[in-house]
C-alpha cells in the first residue's frame, strides 16, 4: 500500500457486493439523467436538421397564410425586393401520393441521388427515395397524381429520385417534386404556397424582411428565417426536456441515498480502524478525505456506467420517438448524440450528488476519537435516520447548484418541481425509521398467527438492521423509479405525438383525409351508411391568426360534441355554447389560450379570415355573453365554428378528419365499406387510424381543463406563434 488512498480502495473491495449495488444505483440515476440530456440534445439537433431540410440554404421564407396562396403579383413583388438574389416560388400540397412539389434545385441542390433533377421547363417529376422504396418506383416509371382538375396531365414520368430525409416533418419521407406550372394546373392554383428567398451578399435578412413588409400589403403571410424556425422547433421540445430532467431527479436521489447509506455503514463498521489511523497519526482531514475518496470512486464508476446505460436508454427512446410521426414538437430525433456536453454534465451531476451525499458521513468519520480503538467490543453505531437533517441541507445545496448547472434554455419550473420531489423523497427517507418497523409489523400480521417465531424473527431483522434494510429499499426504489421514469417518458412521447384533436373530439375512430374534402362529396354520408357506424361527424382543421398569432383551429359540429359530452367547460354553459357553434357561430377557447389572449366569455376577437382581410369581429363565447360586444352576430372562433360557416368563409370545406362512431374494428370498417372505393377517385386513400386507448381513458378520466391540457401545447403551433408572426394587411 503506497498511499493511504489505497485503503479506501481496499475497504470498498472488501464489501464488493455492497459497492457494486451502490455503483449500480448511481449508474441508474445518471443513466436516466444522461438519457434525458442526450435525447434533448438529439431533439435539438433534429430541430436544426429539420430546419436545414425545410429551408435548404434559403435565408428567408415567405409563406402564404391562406389556402389560395401568394398571388402572382405578391410573388413578383417579393422577387423584385432589393437584396433578394433568388426568389423560388413553391407549391406544397398534400395529396394521396403525398407529392411535395417543393424543392427548388437552386436552393436544394444536392439531394437527387438518381436520375436528373428538375430544371425549368421539365416535364418529369422527382420522387423521394422513401416513396421509391415503399411503392417500388424507379426512374422511367409513370406515376399518376391525384387531380380532379386536370386528369389529363396527372400522369407523369419519374425522372429522378431524391435522397429522402425522413425527418422532414409530416411528410413521412414520401414526397413528389413536380414542376411549378404542373402543380398549379393539377391543383387549379393561382398562387403559390410560399417563396423561398436567397439574400444577396452584403444585404441583411432584416433589411429584406422590412422591405418585404413594406411592399406586401394585399394579403396575409408569415415570414421566417432559419434561426426563427429553429428557435420555434426547439422551444416546442423544451417541455419534453424539462419533463425528462425532472424524472431523472428521482433515481439520482435514490442513488445519493445509497451512497450515504453505504458510507455510513462502512464508517460504522470501520470505526475502530479509523480510530487506529487517528492514533497512528492520521489527521481529521485525511480521514474525511478517505471517505470522500470512496464516494468519489463509487460515484465515478457509477456515473461512467450510467452514461453507457443512458446511451442505450436514449437510443431506445429515439427509436420509440421515431416510431411516432411528428414525435416531440413535430421533430423526431435521429438518435442519441454523444456530444461531450451531456456526458460531462451527467458525470458532473453524478459526482456532485455522490460527494454531497458523502459529506455527512465524512464529517462523522472525523469525529471518531482515537481512543475508540482501545475499546474491547466493537459496537456498531446506529446509522440511518440519525442525521438526516444534515442530509436535507446538503441536498438543498445540491439542488441550488443544479439550478446553475442546468442548461439555461430549459424550463426553470421543471427544476422547481424536481425540488418538490426531492423534498418529498427526503421526508419519506426521514420517516423510514418510523415507517419500517410499523410496516414490518403490518406485513407480518397475516403470518403471525401461524408462524409466530418466524414472523418475529423476520420482522426483527428488518428492524434490527435498518441500514441494510434501507439499502435494499433504496435499490428497489432505484429499479422502480427507473421503470416509472422510462414508462412516463415513453408515455408522454406517445401522447405528444398523438393529435390533440384525438383527445378533444368525440369518436372511436379517426379517419384523416390527406386533402380537403368537400361536403358535397358525401363522404360523411357514405360513412354513416357503413354497418356499425353510429355517427360520422365531420371536422375541419385550419389555421387562424389572432392578433398576429397563428393558432390551430378546428371546425366541428357542436351537437355531436354535445352528444358526446367530453368537453369540460371551465366557464360558460356547455349546452348553449356547443349549440351556438351550429347556429350563429361562436368559438370555444381552451383556458390557456383565453388566458394568454386575456379574453373571457362574451368578449370579441378580431381574426384574420381567408381573404386576408381582418375578419369581422366575432364574439368569443362559451356562455351567453354577459357583456355583449358591438356585433353579436359574429363571434370569435377558436376551437370551433360550425364547419359550414368556415366553408363559407373560406370558400371551401375543410373536413379532413372524419371521426366515426363505429361498431366493428378498423379493418372491418374498411373491409365492408371500402370508403376509398365508394368515394372513387375523390378519396383514393383514406387513412384509418385507431385511436390510442390511453388517450381515450385520459380524456374520460381527467375531466377538468381537458381542453387546456390538449395537445396544442405540443403541436408546436403555440410556440411557433412567438417566433412567427402572421402579418396582416394593416
Amino acid at each position, binding site marked *: *500500500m*503506497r*498511499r*493511504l488512498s489505497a*485503503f479506501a480502495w*481496499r*475497504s470498498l473491495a*472488501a464489501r464488493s457486493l455492497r459497492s457494486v449495488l451502490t455503483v449500480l444505483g448511481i449508474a441508474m440515476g445518471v443513466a436516466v439523467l444522461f438519457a434525458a440530456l442526450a435525447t434533448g440534445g438529439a431533439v435539438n439537433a433534429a430541430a436544426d436538421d429539420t430546419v436545414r431540410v425545410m429551408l435548404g440554404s434559403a435565408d428567408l421564407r415567405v409563406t402564404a397564410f391562406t389556402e389560395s396562396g401568394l398571388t402572382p403579383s405578391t410573388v413578383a413583388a417579393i422577387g423584385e425586393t432589393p437584396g433578394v438574389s433568388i426568389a423560388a416560388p413553391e407549391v406544397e400540397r398534400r395529396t394521396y401520393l403525398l407529392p411535395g412539389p417543393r424543392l427548388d434545385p437552386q436552393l436544394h441542390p444536392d439531394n437527387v441521388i438518381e436520375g436528373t433533377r428538375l430544371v425549368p421547363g421539365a416535364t418529369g417529376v422527382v420522387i423521394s427515395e422513401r416513396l421509391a422504396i415503399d411503392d417500388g418506383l424507379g426512374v422511367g416509371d409513370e406515376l399518376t397524381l391525384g387531380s380532379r382538375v386536370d386528369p389529363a396531365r396527372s400522369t407523369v414520368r419519374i425522372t429522378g429520385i431524391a435522397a429522402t430525409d425522413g425527418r422532414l416533418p409530416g411528410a413521412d419521407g414520401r414526397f413528389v417534386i413536380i414542376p411549378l406550372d404542373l402543380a398549379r394546373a393539377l391543383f387549379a392554383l393561382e398562387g403559390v404556397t410560399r417563396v423561398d428567398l436567397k439574400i444577396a451578399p452584403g444585404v441583411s435578412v432584416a433589411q429584406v424582411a422590412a422591405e418585404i413588409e413594406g411592399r406586401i400589403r394585399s394579403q396575409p403571410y408569415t415570414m421566417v428565417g432559419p434561426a426563427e424556425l429553429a428557435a420555434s422547433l426547439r422551444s416546442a421540445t423544451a417541455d419534453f426536456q424539462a419533463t425528462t430532467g425532472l424524472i431523472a431527479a428521482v433515481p439520482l436521489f435514490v442513488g445519493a441515498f445509497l451512497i450515504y447509506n453505504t458510507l455510513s455503514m462502512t464508517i460504522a463498521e470501520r470505526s*475502530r*480502524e479509523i480510530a*487506529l*489511523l*487517528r*492514533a*497512528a*497519526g*492520521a*489527521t*481529521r*482531514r*485525511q480521514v474525511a478525505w478517505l471517505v470522500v475518496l470512496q464516494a468519489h470512486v463509487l460515484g465515478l464508476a457509477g456515473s461512467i456506467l450510467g452514461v453507457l446505460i443512458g446511451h442505450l436508454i436514449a437510443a431506445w427512446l429515439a427509436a420509440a420517438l421515431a416510431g411516432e410521426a411528428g414525435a416531440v414538437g413535430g421533430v423526431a430525433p435521429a438518435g442519441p448524440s454523444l456530444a461531450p456536453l451531456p456526458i460531462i454534465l451527467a458525470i458532473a451531476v453524478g459526482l456532485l450528488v455522490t460527494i454531497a451525499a458523502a459529506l455527512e458521513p465524512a464529517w462523522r468519520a472525523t469525529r471518531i*476519537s*482515537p*481512543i475508540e*480503538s*482501545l475499546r*474491547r467490543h466493537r459496537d456498531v453505531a446506529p446509522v440511518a435516520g440519525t442525521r438526516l437533517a444534515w442530509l436535507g441541507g446538503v441536498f438543498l445545496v445540491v439542488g441550488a447548484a443544479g439550478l446553475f448547472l442546468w442548461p439555461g434554455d430549459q424550463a426553470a419550473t421543471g427544476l422547481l418541481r424536481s425540488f418538490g420531489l426531492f423534498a418529498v423523497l427526503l421526508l419519506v427517507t426521514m420517516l423510514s425509521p418510523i415507517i419500517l418497523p410499523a410496516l414490518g409489523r403490518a406485513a407480518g400480521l397475516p403470518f403471525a398467527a401461524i408462524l409466530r417465531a418466524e414472523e418475529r424473527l423476520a420482522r426483527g431483522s428488518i428492524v434490527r438492521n435498518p441500514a441494510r434494510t434501507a439499502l435494499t429499499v433504496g435499490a428497489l426504489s432505484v429499479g422502480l423509479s427507473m421503470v416509472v421514469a422510462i414508462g412516463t417518458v415513453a408515455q408522454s412521447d406517445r401522447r405528444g405525438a398523438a393529435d390533440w384533436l384525438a383527445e378533444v373530439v368525440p369518436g372511436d375512430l379517426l379517419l384523416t383525409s390527406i386533402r380537403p374534402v368537400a361536403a358535397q362529396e358525401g363522404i360523411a354520408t357514405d360513412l354513416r351508411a357503413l354497418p356499425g357506424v353510429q355517427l360520422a361527424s365531420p371536422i375541419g382543421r385550419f389555421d387562424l391568426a389572432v392578433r398576429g398569432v397563428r393558432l390551430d383551429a378546428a371546425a366541428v359540429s357542436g351537437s355531436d360534441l354535445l352528444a358526446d359530452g367530453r368537453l369540460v367547460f371551465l366557464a360558460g354553459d356547455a349546452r348553449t355554447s356547443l349549440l351556438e357553434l351550429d347556429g350563429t357561430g361562436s368559438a370555444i377557447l381552451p383556458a390557456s389560450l383565453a388566458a394568454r389572449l386575456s379574453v373571457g366569455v362574451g368578449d370579441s376577437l378580431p381574426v384574420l379570415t381567408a381573404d386576408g382581410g381582418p375578419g369581422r369581429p366575432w364574439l368569443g363565447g362559451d356562455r351567453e355573453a354577459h357583456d355583449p360586444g358591438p356585433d353579436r352576430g359574429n363571434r370569435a372562433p377558436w376551437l370551433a365554428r360550425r364547419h359550414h360557416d368556415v366553408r363559407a368563409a373560406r370558400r371551401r370545406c375543410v373536413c379532413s378528419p372524419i371521426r366515426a362512431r363505429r361498431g366493428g374494428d378498423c379493418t372491418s370498417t374498411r373491409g365492408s365499406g371500402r370508403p376509398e372505393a365508394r368515394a372513387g377517385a375523390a378519396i383514393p386513400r383514406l387513412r384509418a387510424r385507431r385511436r390510442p386507448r390511453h388517450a381515450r381513458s385520459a380524456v374520460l378520466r381527467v375531466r377538468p381543463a381537458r381542453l387546456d391540457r390538449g395537445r396544442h401545447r405540443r403541436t408546436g403551433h403555440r410556440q411557433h406563434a412567438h417566433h412567427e408572426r402572421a402579418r396582416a394587411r394593416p
Partner: protein
Amino acid sequence: MAFVPDVRRASRLRAMDPATVAPGPPRAAPGMPILEARDLAKVYNLGGTRVEALRGVSLTVREGEFVAIMGPSGSGKSTLLQLLGGLDQPSAGEVVLTDEVLGRLSDDELTKLRRARTGFVFQFFNLIPLLDVVENVALPFTIAGVDSRSCDVVARIRDVLALVDLTGKERHRPDELSAGEQQRVAIARALVTRPALLFADEPTGNLDYTTGGELLDALWRSSDERNQTVVLVTHNSRAAAYADRVYVLRDGRTIDEIALGRRADHDAGPLIARLTQLGL
C-alpha cells in the same frame, strides 16, 4: 539522468527520527525528562454519574527509561496512558511530551506529534485486517505520505521486523497470525518511526505465558539495544518487572513509585514483595 534526491521525503523521515526530534545522551546515564505529567485529573460523565478516573497524577519519564504503570483493574491506568500519549485531553493538569505542552496544541498538531514522536501498542485491535504485515508496519509512513517502498523505509521495516522476530511473515494478513505474532507486529509498527516514546497498554493481556514472555523480550530488546523510551501499562507484576521504574496506581492516584533499576533477569521477586507490602 541525474539523480535528484527527494528532499521532502528525506526531511519527513528525519522528523520521525528520535535522534533529530529529541537528541539525548547515551544509555548509561538516564537522560533528560522526556515526558512529564502534572496533577492529571480525568472525569468521565456517564449519563449523570461522574467517574473520576484520575485524581491528580504526576510522573516523569526520562529518555531511555523503561517505566511501568501498575494497578488493579479500573485504577485508571489506561486513562493515564491515553492522556500521556495525547490520545485524549485531561480534565485538569498538563502533559509535557518532548517539550510540547499537549493541552496547547491543536488537534492537527497533536495528531502530527503522535505520528512523529509516539508509538502505541494496545491490548486489542492493533492491526488493520485488510492490510498485510508489512503494510500494517508501514502505516505511519503511509499516513505521513512517505512512500513505503522507498529504500530507507523498506530497510527500517526489515530491521524492525527482525527485532520482533517476524522475518518471513511479511505478507501474512493479521488473521493468519497468532495473537502473540499480531502483538509483535503492533510493536514493530510502533517502533518503525523510531518514536521518542513507546506506549503499550496491556500488550500481553491476551497472551499466554510463553508468547507474553516473547513479547516482553521484544520490548526489552528495543529498550536495551536501541535506547527506546517505553511506558508500559500492565496489571501483571511479571511484565512490570521488566521496567526500570514502576508507578503503582490505585483509584486514580499514584500510591507508590518503585525503582527497580535495569536488570537483565527481570526478576519479579522484589516488585512482588513491595506490592505485598502495599496490600495489592
